[in-house]
């Protein structure tokens, strides 16, 4: 177990190095030069040179890379070039809103997708199954952008059920007042793929021999489903869920922008627009580490849930 854990941790190092190099060179070579913006409208070439010096981007690439690596090791990415806010503070404060959006979304999505998936796999090949599948396909075919534009217009403005946008500093108010509409719209696109995926997981299990054994024991259908099938299907469902989490963190930028939610996705777009390299670097490294740990966690969870796999 520990050996496995440590080996996996060691394996992260080359991956992280790859990420670092890729991002460093991509953004250093071709990313914009923020000095031209920071210098203001009337800057002279000396002003720009001064700013480049202040930011350290006039140094040779290898010393910049070295600084970058030092930053990663120390976990201190310095300050944002555009706002002078410390990068760690930016992520600490933007993570909350993203999570307030994401966690309920994940929970509702998973619970309802699993319920629907169980339902349709029980009634598979029936009209219910087929119509629900077609409906979910239609739902996921519509662009999130369309959902947001139309949803905000109809539900927030026209019907007035939700606020149009905004974010506060009380968790409860955010959760109950500001977040519901974006969560709902996000769910419109995300439930369907999960439902379809989980349905295949559950169908895979339902066709297994042990289900037949359970039925042969005379168990009720619901016990067969919830105890036997779900317990097995939960393994791919949960690991899948865990692995998709880090990607979602940055993936909600459309919702964050339209509903004025100060989340990470929006911050990253802003950073790219401003060529705010410290934030881009930190975002990449943080998300990469999160992704790797999520994968590791998924692996551990998988091994924990599935007694057949032993930790080697």
């Amino acid at each position, binding site marked *: 177990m520990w050996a496995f854990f440590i080996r996996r941790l060691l394996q992260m190092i080359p991956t992280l190095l790859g990420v670092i190099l890729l991002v460093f060179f991509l953004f250093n070579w071709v990313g*914009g*030069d*923020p000095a*031209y*913006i*920071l*210098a*203001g*409208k*009337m*800057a*002279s*070439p000396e*002003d*720009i040179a*001064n*700013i480049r010096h*202040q930011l350290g981007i006039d140094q040779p690439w290898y010393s910049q890379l070295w600084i970058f690596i030092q930053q990663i090791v120390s976990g201190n990415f310095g*300050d944002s070039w*555009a*706002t*002078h*806010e*410390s990068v760690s*503070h*930016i992520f600490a*404060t*933007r993570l909350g*809103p993203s999570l307030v959006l994401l966690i309920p979304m994940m929970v509702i999505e998973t619970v309802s997708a699993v319920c629907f998936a169980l339902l349709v796999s029980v009634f598979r090949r029936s009209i219910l199954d087929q119509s629900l599948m077609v409906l979910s396909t239609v739902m996921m075919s519509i662009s999130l952008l369309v959902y947001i*534009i139309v949803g*905000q*217009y109809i539900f*927030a*403005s026209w019907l*007035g059920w939700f*606020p*149009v*946008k*905004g*974010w*506060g*500093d009380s968790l409860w108010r955010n959760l109950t007042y500001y977040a519901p509409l974006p969560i709902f719209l996000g769910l419109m696109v995300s439930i369907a793929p999960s439902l379809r995926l989980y349905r295949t997981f559950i169908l895979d299990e339902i066709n297994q021999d042990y289900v037949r054994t359970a039925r042969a024991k005379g168990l009720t259908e619901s016990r067969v489903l919830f105890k036997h099938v779900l317990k097995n299907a939960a393994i791919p469902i949960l690991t899948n869920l865990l692995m998709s989490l880090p990607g979602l963190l940055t993936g909600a930028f459309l919702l964050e*922008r*339209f*509903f*004025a*939610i*100060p989340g990470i996705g*929006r*911050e990253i777009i*802003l950073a*790219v*627009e*401003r*060529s705010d390299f410290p934030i881009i670097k930190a975002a990449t490294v943080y998300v990469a580490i999160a992704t790797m740990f999520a994968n590791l966690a998924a692996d551990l969870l998988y091994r924990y849930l599935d007694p057949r796999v032993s930790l080697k």
Partner: protein
Amino acid sequence: EAAPLKVLHLSLSAAETGFDPVMTSDLNTAAIEEQIFEPLLTYDYLARPVKLVPRLAQGMPVITDHGKTWLFTLKKGVYFSPDPVFKGKRREVRAQDVAYTIMRFMDPKNRSPYKFLVDHKIVGLDQLGERAKQTGHFDYDANVPGLEVVGPYQLKIHLTGTDYNFGHAMAQPMFGIVAREVIENYAGDTASHPVGSGPYMIGKWIRSASISLIKNPNFRDEVWQFTSTDPSDQDIIRRMTGKKIPQIDEVDLQIVEESQSAYLSFLKGELDVFGVPGQFAPIVLSGNQLKPKLKEQGIQLTRLVDPAITYYFINIQDPILGGMSVQRIALRRAILMSINDEEMIRVIYKGQAFREAFPIPEGVNGHDQHYQSLIQYNPKEANDLLDAMGFMRGSDGYRRQPDGGPLYVKYTTSLTSQDRDLEEIMKKSLDRIGIHFVSEKLKFPEIIRAERQCRVAMRLSSWIADYPDGDNFMQLWYGPHTHENNASCYQNSQWDKLYEKTEMLPDSPERDDIYKQLARLLEIDGVTKVSTSHIRNVLIQPWVIGYKAHPILPSTWSYLDIDTKQEAH
């Protein structure tokens, strides 16, 4: 029983960048800083054209020595907002603080975007900056001859040369006075600890999401006493005069990037003031009037011409479009003639802009409202001109260089959807005269870099007044400003000489005459075609009292009031 809290709800279209005035470059941040910090001077709320008036200064400065010496006298009894640094004591604003504030702009560590307002202007200050660049340390204790502290409330500023615009610099929110001990205490993190003497200070602040401004308890007694002869202002004057500034208890600012979101919020009453983006004009306006439906709700509209221009420029150093040969001049003029600004105003700006041919917009000193453009939309003549100059069409219907070389216009835009519209306009224009359109889309910082390196062939740029003087616009084509903001990289000694003459002149008919020549010369050389000026439409909820859009001041919230009864309704 306490009166209900008066809260003004506003939105900003982009996130704030932190509140250290010396580092600020964007308007949204400046708007907030305008309320927190106070510069020496400001602009009168109602007067049009805008007029400088004292803010922290007791009165207008005494200018002597042909505009080279400026004597400012500060108001007494002005205090910074409370901060732990002051250890519970009230801290008064003194002349020394003004000198310190100005010195900060030259500190290379601050990399101030508005350094140009004092750069090379104050005797002895540049040297201090140079020394700091070498030693890495800016000596704030050094004696700067140009910043002469005459007494606790008096500062005499010695300029290196004649500058009648220095007063405008001292009215910018970036020159809001700061206290040295605050800055030094929060060194490295000054942007999150704004301490000024303005009517408001920061309350709750969720970065990039919402900022709430609350009253500064140390703000001096000041009453609303603006005057104006404009009949449309009389109602405001009647309702506001004599009220203590500020009336509003809290300003709640939300960052809303998507304009659909902001507009829908305003309709729901979640926002009190909403600057209508051009593309939304058709829903709120019919002609120049508010839509009846909105009018019924009591929503007010104020309109104003932005002190800004949009202008097409062509890079005079571009290998294809540049050069001063007659052929190239003709080519550039033909390109500029092919652009239908009327169509752009109608389709893209939804009528919320007008054709402006003069490089200095309305409301800015030096503007000429009778100026007629030499370059008018006339694709037919443009085609004839190109034919006459030997730009012949090839078999594909597109023109080539007279020597047979390739001919195209690389048009640079940014990545927003508005930029896509601009590209469409340009493509249509060039199609009219048979020239290939090549698109170059860059992120905004990259555009600026490319411009400064004279690599942008053509672009529709815009310039908004930093201060309401024509010089702020005309310098855009000044030869020595190549690699700065002369993006057309225009270098014409005749033009430059004329421009240098205007620099020595105050706002006067004499200077206006030269400005006309400068403007005409730009057109003759086909460097620039000024395209439009925009109308700012601001919607105000019925319960907001005293709102008048100001062309220069980035925010005027302290001059407003709210009718809480009506708001609750």
